[in-house]
């Protein structure tokens, strides 16, 4: 008797999860970054993302290698250290139909690349920007990054004496329309946040605590698995319902708050902390700062605003992706040159 393996489940595009994977990871076994890759694959599968429309971007670092490990059918661009935001900005204005996913590290984003990150947020470049945050430079073998907490200790005993930069408070300050923090050890929450980000039109900053098992996972490290597990305080339970599933699913009313994205998808928040309102920017700032004081790191969708103009609005470019415009639309005629010459005579 022969048995056939049960067919792998497919999504609305008829694709299996296997269609969203990439090459084999070359990161250290147990690296937090690999769990994030796994959730990106799950979220894209569930969200029926057309992989060929995805642009995957990264800078340089262990984290920045990961775009090679998901979505084999997407175009990828592993650029230079810290400057992926400008590459994504160029691609995003060239072809406004691309779904942009960037993966960076805390070194890549918070030191060499902080200028580009800041200005990408200001321009509201539509992209998911994930910071795989381990408090160290993994690829250059374990130096402190700018997110390392004051007093955290390196494997060899060096103590960090500089105050950290928090990507989420920074993003909030800059008016980013989607700010979230999660933990690579919390796949459920990360998955929900990623799906919500895929529905959002604008820059999504997602700071994911992602322990470096090789250089920063000892007990004294504040970005170790143990520390993250002990100090992770979810702000709320998140529920995400994609637009085309709205018919079937009822969103619980009552104490939950619902945010609707332009495509009709919704996130519901059931607050675990009193009065947490993810659409209140000042409230979010206050809660975040209080968390820092208490030594907690708060996870969840910290702030969302679905109404901000994006770089496509700000540049006043055509609705049709610029790359799809042909010569007829791009090359003015002879009469225009004659007119320009006349004005100079």
């Amino acid at each position, binding site marked *: 008797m022969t048995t056939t393996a049960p067919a792998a489940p497919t999504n609305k595009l008829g694709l299996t999860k296997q269609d969203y994977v990439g*090459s084999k990871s070359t990161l250290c076994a147990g690296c937090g970054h690999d769990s994030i890759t796994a959730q990106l694959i799950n979220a894209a599968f569930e969200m029926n993302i*057309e*992989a*060929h*429309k*995805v*642009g995957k971007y990264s800078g340089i670092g262990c984290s920045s290698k990961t*775009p*090679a490990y998901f979505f*084999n*059918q*997407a*175009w*990828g*661009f*592993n*650029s*230079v250290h810290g*400057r*992926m*935001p*400008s*590459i*994504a*900005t*160029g*691609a*995003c*204005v*060239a*072809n406004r*139909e*691309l779904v942009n996913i960037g993966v960076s590290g805390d070194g890549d984003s918070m030191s060499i690349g902080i*200028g*580009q990150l*800041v*200005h990408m947020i200001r*321009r509201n470049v539509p992209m998911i920007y994930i910071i795989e945050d381990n408090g160290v430079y993994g690829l250059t073998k374990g130096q402190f990054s700018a997110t390392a907490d004051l007093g955290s200790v390196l494997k060899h005993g060096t103590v960090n004496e500089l105050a950290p930069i928090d990507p989420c408070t920074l993003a909030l300050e800059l008016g980013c329309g989607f700010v979230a923090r999660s933990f690579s050890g919390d796949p459920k929450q990360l998955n929900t946040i990623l799906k919500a980000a895929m529905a959002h039109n604008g820059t999504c900053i997602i700071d994911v605590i992602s322990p470096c098992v090789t250089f920063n996972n000892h007990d004294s490290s504040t970005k170790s698995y143990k520390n993250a597990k002990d100090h992770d305080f979810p702000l709320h339970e998140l529920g995400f319902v994609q637009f085309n599933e709205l018919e079937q699913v009822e969103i619980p009313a009552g104490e939950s708050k619902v945010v609707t994205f332009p495509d009709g998808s919704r996130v519901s928040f059931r607050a675990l902390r009193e009065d947490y309102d993810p659409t209140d920017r000042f409230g979010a700032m206050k809660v975040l700062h209080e968390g820092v004081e208490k030594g907690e790191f708060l996870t969840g969708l910290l702030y969302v605003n679905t109404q901000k103009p994006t*770089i496509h609005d700000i*540049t*006043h*470019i*055509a*609705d*049709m*992706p*610029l*790359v799809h*415009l042909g*010569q007829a*639309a*791009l*090359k*003015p005629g002879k009469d*225009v*040159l004659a007119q*320009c*010459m006349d004005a*100079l*005579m």
Partner: protein
Amino acid sequence: MSTALANGHTLDHTKTLVNDFSIEIGTVNGSGSQTANSVLMRTIFQMGVPVSGKNLFPSNIAGLPTWFQIRANTKGYVARKAIVDLMICMNPETAKDDVLKLAAGALVIYDEPLKLNTLRDDLIYYPVPFQKLVTASCPEPKLHKLVKNMIYVGVAGQMLGLDMNETKNAITKQLKGKQKAIEINQAAVDAGYAWAAENMPAQNRLKVVPDNKTTGNIIIDGNAACALGSMFAGVQVVGWYPITPSSSLVESLIDYADEHRRDENGKLTVAIVQMEDELASAGVVFGAGWAGARSMTSTSGPGISLMSEFIGLGYFSEIPGVFFNVARTGPSTGLPTRTMQGDIDICAKCSHGDTLHINLYPGNMSECFDFAYESFNLAERFQTPVFVVTDLDLGMQNWMSKPFTYPEGDFDRGKVVGEKELAAMKDWGRYKDVDGDGIPYRSLPGTPGGKGAYFTRGSGHNAMALYSEKPEDYKELVDRLRAKYETAKQYVPKPIVDGTGSKRGVLAFGSSDPAVMEARDVLSERFQKKTDYLRLRALPFTSEVDAFIKESDVIYVVEQNRDGQMKALLREFYPEAATKLKSVLHYNGMALDAQTIVDQINAFEK
């Protein structure tokens, strides 16, 4: 009266210089002298006399000294002329020096209270009571400072015999429909003219008489010409960061695109994004180029230095993009607002590792337009950054030009494969050299059909775009990039060669051209030295350069930098010719003049 010149000739001051002299005006930055100077220059141009104008400005917005040089030349020599025939002194701070540097016999118009006539007695002075004339001609005291400059236009106009109707046309053109401004400026010109007619002794030294040598010509600067070329090339994405002398290139493009690059809904067909710095501008160029758009940036030397890491990535991972470099000498390495051909080396080889780039060197306004247009074809054909290297002199100064010719034909989008082509290809590989010309095929993000996706990286990769650290893969890749550079020789603009068979070669490029042309005439007419001229217009060096070097006994390489950067490149690519190459150099921040070239060549041949 006569003056002995360094080259052994004497200037005869009794002769009238008709349509062949230079004017220099010393003013204060931000005092509105730009308008006055343009009007003066345009009047001469509109009278049919070939003319060029150079603005020597400080790195400052208002208050520091500025000079404007106008050269009228009936033969069409438009290079800077080292000797000033008429000096107009409006800036008390520099007036003394301005007068002391003049050659004997020069004419000087100056603001009466400056009493410059006590400085030397070998000049011809024309004191003008500017303040009195302004007060009388302009009712609004707060405009006095601005229109004061228009008075000298009237005074000089009367003195040189300019056609005041053309001055009137020039004012109207310059102030485009601002009626009140036109009236006030015209009144000041008239006041200067009337005063000069009544009070100034007539002179016979410098005269402008109507000619027909500028009919149908335009006046433009190189940045506007490059902007036009880019607009007609269909540029789709621009990332830029302001830096003199390149800012006006993108600013002109913004204006042109605003009018001529909108779709049927009135939306722009080009995205122009002012970035936070040049690093980010380069990123936008390559992000957009990778996604399939025609992309560009415009900058100057300091910007290129910052962009260089990205440019290496663009070269190595084979992404098109156009980089305009309007060169100047600094800052960090010199004067921020003076001209220099100082970035030859950095643009030829920009970035770490083994890198060689296609460079275009326009030498006049038509070429600024044509090469800007062509650079996008080359970038996409060769999937690589292409540099259009100009300088402050070309980019920001006023040049006379024939109107540009419409670029006929289709864009060359290079080897891009879409869904259909991919489906028909058996074994697609992003970096495979299918045609043996070093140029692979590329696919664009967003192409449907499930084929064609690949991963771009600046680290080791093989022909299939997969990560590789294998020695043979890396060597194959960089060797192919070199082969691609060889292929580019068939596509880049060829040099212009003017041979007389003299075996005395002159090799120059870019903004040096007008001075070289004039110097060749001087060498031939006064010193009986015939020269052959090769004007280089691109890198890589093509077979015409090979032949020129082979045929010449000596090659004077004229360039505007200290170290002979082009000569060093030539020595690298033609080591056998090293002893034939002699440097003719000019690098004080001023535009090159013919006399400098003549003197240096003569010194070599003593």
